[in-house]
């Protein structure tokens, strides 16, 4: 009981210190306080014709072709969104590989990290990945054949 009494006393003290009542919007008071803003709102409402507000929507609703086109746009948008999500997933899966240059992949620190993470298999995999990125040679077989044929 004493605790409840204490809380009531505390609540009253807080209420007196800060205004805890629910805020109420007084339109008339606001109109008088901000006449410029009120006028701008009134003019904007008057300038926008009804047809313009619902024009595109009403065309879509009435026209069969537009309905099909709108559906196609919606499907493509959803498709692109899903494709984007997939791509994001792949990037998240191998951030290290995408971020690293071949030189960074073959530093002592990087190769040690690979070994500590996955043993010999991971070390070999990192070496092979770096080798693929570094590339070999300057000419492909096709280049050699084309060059030798003049």
């Amino acid at each position, binding site marked *: 009981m004493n605790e409840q009494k204490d809380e009531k006393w505390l609540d009253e003290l807080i209420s007196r210190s800060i205004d805890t009542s629910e805020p109420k919007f007084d339109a008339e008071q606001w109109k008088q306080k901000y006449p410029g803003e009120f006028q701008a709102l009134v003019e904007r409402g008057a300038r926008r014709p009804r047809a313009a507000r619902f024009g595109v929507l009403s065309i879509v609703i009435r026209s069969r072709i537009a309905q099909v086109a709108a559906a196609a746009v919606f499907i493509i948008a959803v498709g692109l969104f899903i494709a984007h999500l997939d791509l994001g997933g792949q990037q998240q899966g191998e951030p290290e590989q995408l971020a690293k240059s071949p030189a960074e992949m073959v530093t*002592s620190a990087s190769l040690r990290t690979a070994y500590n993470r996955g*043993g010999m298999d991971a070390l070999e995999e990192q070496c092979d990945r*770096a080798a693929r990125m570094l590339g*070999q*040679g*300057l000419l*492909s*077989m096709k280049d050699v054949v084309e060059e030798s044929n003049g």
Partner: protein
Amino acid sequence: MSVLRNNRIRMVLCALLLTLGVAVPVLAYPPDPDNAALLYYQAFLSCPKVDEPLDTQLRDFADGKIALNKGIEDYVESCHSAIKLAIAASELRECDWGLRYSEGFSMILSHLAQIRTLGRILIADARVMASRGEYAEALARCVTVLKIARHVGDKTLISTLVGWAVEGTTYRCIQDLLGQMPGDRQGGKGHLKALERLRADLAALSKRPLSLKNSLQIEREVVLEQIQMEKVPDLLKDLDPNKSPEESMKLIMDYGGEAFLEQCRDHYSKFMASVMSIIESDASYAEAHQRLAEAFEQPGKDQKNKKNEAMFTAAIAPAIGKIYGNMIRATTHTNVVRAAVELYIAKGKTGRLPETLPAGLPKDLFSGEDFEYKKTETGFMLKCRGKDLDKDEIHQYEFKVPK
């Protein structure tokens, strides 16, 4: 003419002519490189570019997973310049890759990526030759790759590991070739001689194996050089890229600056000394494995016990238990192939496999004993007697014998 009769004058003239004879060809053109790495780097550049799916096919063919096809054969043929350079390089004694050890963990080891590719091309070449029945040449090509693995070197831990990996691929190829190669009694010409040659080559190579101790010693020197006030920010950045140099330096200064780094170097040195003493000891594989695991855990425990000087050791200490396991596995693989070659030679001489394993053959390092030998329907099996504690398995190696 009386002058020519004087012996002293004759000797001087002869010496002069000899000097001229030796000196003239030397002056004719500069000598070929005596550093194998220079030839390997040229070999890397001489390999024609390989695209998919051929790249994957080449890897699988070198690993013995797929059969030879025209694309692989043509590609290997197009690498003949690189192969020639690699063979010449493998015969040289010196191989200095020009690594910048002063860079510490930032040191670039790009040759390790390339050497694996070159090794794979040579192994593929060996398999192509075997497909034509040129087994002696194919085995010689495998020996070349083993020599290249030695050149990869034991000057860093990572290069030692890559060297073992290259050896592993090569021994698997040798296993396959031995299983296909008909003995002289089965129509193979000069194959017994090729086996004896292989035995001599493998014995010579086993006298200078890749040394884990050597790589650990160099690792220690490189790391001690890095735990210096001027290099610590870079070192910590390598270890934790999220930490700025300012943060790192503040941490070091809070702990006592240079005096603290001295304690860190001492802690790391003692750790490496204890690890090397275990590796060099006569302890069995199981015992060394246990002791190395304990040694590896110690820096972490020291750190928990507020020994801040253990911070670098805990962060930098190599995964020594795992590396030791790789060494035992690689050496055991070498030994099992050497033991198998003896059995193939015995078969070549007598026409049949021995009933028991001959004495004095290289051993299974997991147990320190001879391999367990068993004849099978297709050839024979050599099995380890001790368990690989990292992989939790007992390795066994199957060898086929052509009918």
